[in-house]
């Protein structure tokens, strides 16, 4: 007799530790791939699983291998049809000779993808943004649920037994199945006792026997029909209910005039992605509106936003006007939380910057929960501009807005690591928003 063991219930993911080690090993390569994906993909896609090609660098396992292109070999192959000794077969492309299908594993290993979980993607994405750990954690957290009572269930944890419901079922079943009551049995027992106590009379012996039979039958029945049966038991059922979240709309504004190059757009995109992640944590539904502008502004889709260039001058206020128009049309401020992020290299046509600040100070900042402005500058410029308030006309104009509105944030960024501080304030505000709910 063999020893049968059922291992199916053993903990799964025995190889998780190995997987983690492998990812760490392939880290650089994966990071590059994920970055590329984020550059090429849609903003909302960052927050999801990603298939990435198997990284080859850093994860090869060298061993001493015979070289295919040297020496003499003898192959034995099955299925000869027409060959006789002395026949010559040309080698395919000077390759591995007779064993045509030797390619096998080596190739297959290169061209397959494996799937990074959402968490792993985010880890790689966050890496050089220098986010504090707390924030990484809260960004990675998924929607929170609250258990809500939702009727009864036939299975559950013992702590959740609903006694009232259980006893009601038990009572009904006992009545339906005619479970003898204790009172009946006791009455019977009493009768037997009195009969046994009195001196035997004719016919009483038979009566006694009947009563004994009846008592036994009742007790057997009582044993067979339990007081509380597993089928009676009811548990309180709880259903996870997502905490109510409101809607948010995120406006991405960007200058697409020719002065914005690849690097600038990449930085801007990371900035938008991060804002999107932050918002997604807090709102069920997020709309993203892309507005690009040169000397005129237009709402466009994401692809056009990041990838097509347009020539022309730069009039920033047109974008703000467009945003205002869209808000009035589609996103009434009482139903939507409005967030705006603007990325630019700071160029603006003379005299327009004042108009921008008055637009913001006027209607826009009242509507927005939060407005972030990032000015993307050259790394060499950081040393000149880093500390001063001086700068382009747009920067100077926005300084005044910044002083007037606490929910306005502005910063200059030259490297990915500069992006996070823009959001710091947004997070500092979070406790108060939660209290308000």
């Amino acid at each position, binding site marked *: 007799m063999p020893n049968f063991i059922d291992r199916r219930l*053993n903990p799964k993911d025995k190889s998780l530790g190995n997987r983690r080690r492998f990812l760490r090993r392939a880290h650089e390569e994966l990071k590059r791939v994920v970055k590329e994906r984020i550059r090429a993909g849609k903003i909302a896609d960052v927050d999801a699983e990603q298939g990435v090609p198997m990284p080859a660098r850093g994860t090869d396992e060298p*061993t001493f*291998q015979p070289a295919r292109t040297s020496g003499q070999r003898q192959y*034995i192959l*099955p299925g000869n049809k027409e060959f006789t000794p002395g026949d010559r077969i040309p080698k395919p492309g000077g390759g591995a000779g*007779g064993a045509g299908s030797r390619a096998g594993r080596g190739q297959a290993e290169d061209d397959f993808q494996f799937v990074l979980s959402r968490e792993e993607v985010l880890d790689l994405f966050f890496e050089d943004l220098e986010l504090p750990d707390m924030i990484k954690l809260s960004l990675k957290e998924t929607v929170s649920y609250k258990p809500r009572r939702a009727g009864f269930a036939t299975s559950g944890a013992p702590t959740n037994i609903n006694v009232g419901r259980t006893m009601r079922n038990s009572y009904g079943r006992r009545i339906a199945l005619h479970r003898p009551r204790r009172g009946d049995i006791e009455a019977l027992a009493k009768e037997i006792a009195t009969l046994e106590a009195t001196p035997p009379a004719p016919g009483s012996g038979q009566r006694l026997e009947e009563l004994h039979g009846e008592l036994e039958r009742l007790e057997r029945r009582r044993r067979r029909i339990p007081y509380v049966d597993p089928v009676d038991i009811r548990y309180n059922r709880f259903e996870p209910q997502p905490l109510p979240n409101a809607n948010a709309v995120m406006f991405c504004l960007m200058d697409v005039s020719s002065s914005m190059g690849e690097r600038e757009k990449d930085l801007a995109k990371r900035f938008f992605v991060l804002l999107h992640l932050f918002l997604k944590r807090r709102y069920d539904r997020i709309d993203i509106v892309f507005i690009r502008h040169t000397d005129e502004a237009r709402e466009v889709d994401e692809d056009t936003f990041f990838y097509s260039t347009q020539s022309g001058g730069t009039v920033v206020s047109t974008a703000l006007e467009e945003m205002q128009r869209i808000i009035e049309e589609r996103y009434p401020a009482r139903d939507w939380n409005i967030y705006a992020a603007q990325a630019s290299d700071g160029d603006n046509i003379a005299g327009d910057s004042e108009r921008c600040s008055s637009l913001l100070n006027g209607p826009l900042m009242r509507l927005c929960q939060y407005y972030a402005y990032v000015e993307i500058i050259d790394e060499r410029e950081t040393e000149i501009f880093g500390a001063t308030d001086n700068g382009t006309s747009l920067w100077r104009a926005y300084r005044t807005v910044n002083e007037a509105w606490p929910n306005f944030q502005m910063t200059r960024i030259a490297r990915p690591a500069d992006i996070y501080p823009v959001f710091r304030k947004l997070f500092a505000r979070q406790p108060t928003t939660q209290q308000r709910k």
Partner: protein
Amino acid sequence: MTKRPASPLLFSGSDWNFATLSRTYEAIETIALEELQLDVYPNQIEIISSEQMLDAYSSVGMPLMYQHWSFGKRFVFEDHLYRKGLRGLAYELVINSNPCISYLMEENTMAIQALVTAHAAFGHNHFFKNNYLFRQWTDANAILGYMEFAKKYVTKCEERHGTAAVEEILDSAHAIMDQGVFRYRRPPRLSSEKERERARERLEYEEQTYNDLWRTLPSSTDASDEDGASKAERDAAERKKALNLPEENLLYFLEKNSLILEPWQREILRIVRVIAQYFYPQRQTKVMNEGCATFVHYFIMNRLYDQGKINEGTMLEVLQSHSNVVFQPDFDDPRFSGINPYALGFALMQDIERIATEPTAEDRDWFPDLAGSGDWRATLIDAWANHRDESFILQYLSPALIRKFRLFLLSDRAGDNFCEVTSIHNERGYEAVRTALARNYETGANLPDIQVVDVDLLGNRHLRLAHYIKNGVLLEEEKRDATLRHVRRLWGYDVSLAGVDAATGETRYERSTAQLSE
């Protein structure tokens, strides 16, 4: 569970439960032990899910394994193939241990469970217990305990020295795992506590009885009349002798002699070496092992059917799965990926049965002892115990089988732009085909033969390896250099590899880590 007298069937339908499993096991056991006279370790049968099967795959089939990124890589790879439907999972996995552990997949139907029980729990199990390679070179009783120790030990090292440091050692050890086995001499047994104790006592005794007087004896007479050059030669010979050189097992040599390794690093090398050695017999007996198991399951399932214990539906399912397993595509078939060890092994076993019972005149010429003896059981039991693939093919591959597979021999010489068909399945070709096929299964000959030949421990500590080139087959240069770097990491000083032609003794190449850029 007792059999219902009404129906002699062990089971019907495709669902299984533990009652049908054990009832079937007992019926199979009766046939295996009484009719085939198999001799097996006690069986332990474990039911696992597909995910656990993938886990087992990626950790080279061991139920316990230390953690390493390469297993993660393999898991991702296997998982991908499986999910894409490119590759089915094995129905079972069996471990050479005592008790013999067989994994059955929960998805299998009852017919398949019966098939794999016969295949793994009796076929493979018998082979593991009786084949001389496994008996001599692996220790089925100790392996599970050892793996548990290995796993814990590596984890402990990771805690103490950091994952990166442990990973470095494991990476390097894995790189020369193929060169970490004893091919020709018996490996030292896994030493138990008691033996280690005895070794220590012996050393102590030697220390106590040391007598300085012996040192003062004049050395042998021929020491005086030598010139400088041959003195160096003699020194070299002496130090090679002291280190037991040449040494074919690089891991063993590094473990014992590397000057830079910490004790825990040596222990990790040892773990990798023990595992490599444990798997070495399996590589040498792939055809026989699978052939034996396939023959056993085929025999047993047919017997069960003859006895009326399984119905036609079950038998059809079994046969369908069996013929998939032993399918051998032709060389020009897109599905061809080398000779299928199941097909070849099974055909060889069946052929032995045929020769023993219904020999032709040709068989009487080729196998005078075996032909018509009628006792195929004893022949098979004997062959399973005393052969490995190479010798088995050399001994038992019959002309009839060569014709059946239509085997032909193709010579491939680097430099020519053609391959030549040297022999085919005809009277003149049988011998050549058989010899060449046997040689293709000689693991020792197909792995690059790399040995430690010299090291000057008192000088610059340069470690010299030699690659004995057979048939002019060199090494892939990129991988060779990368692997040499790993050897250097374990040795700590420069390492060089010289390619020496095994036939002529001529040096074909020489590569030193000093030449490699880090």
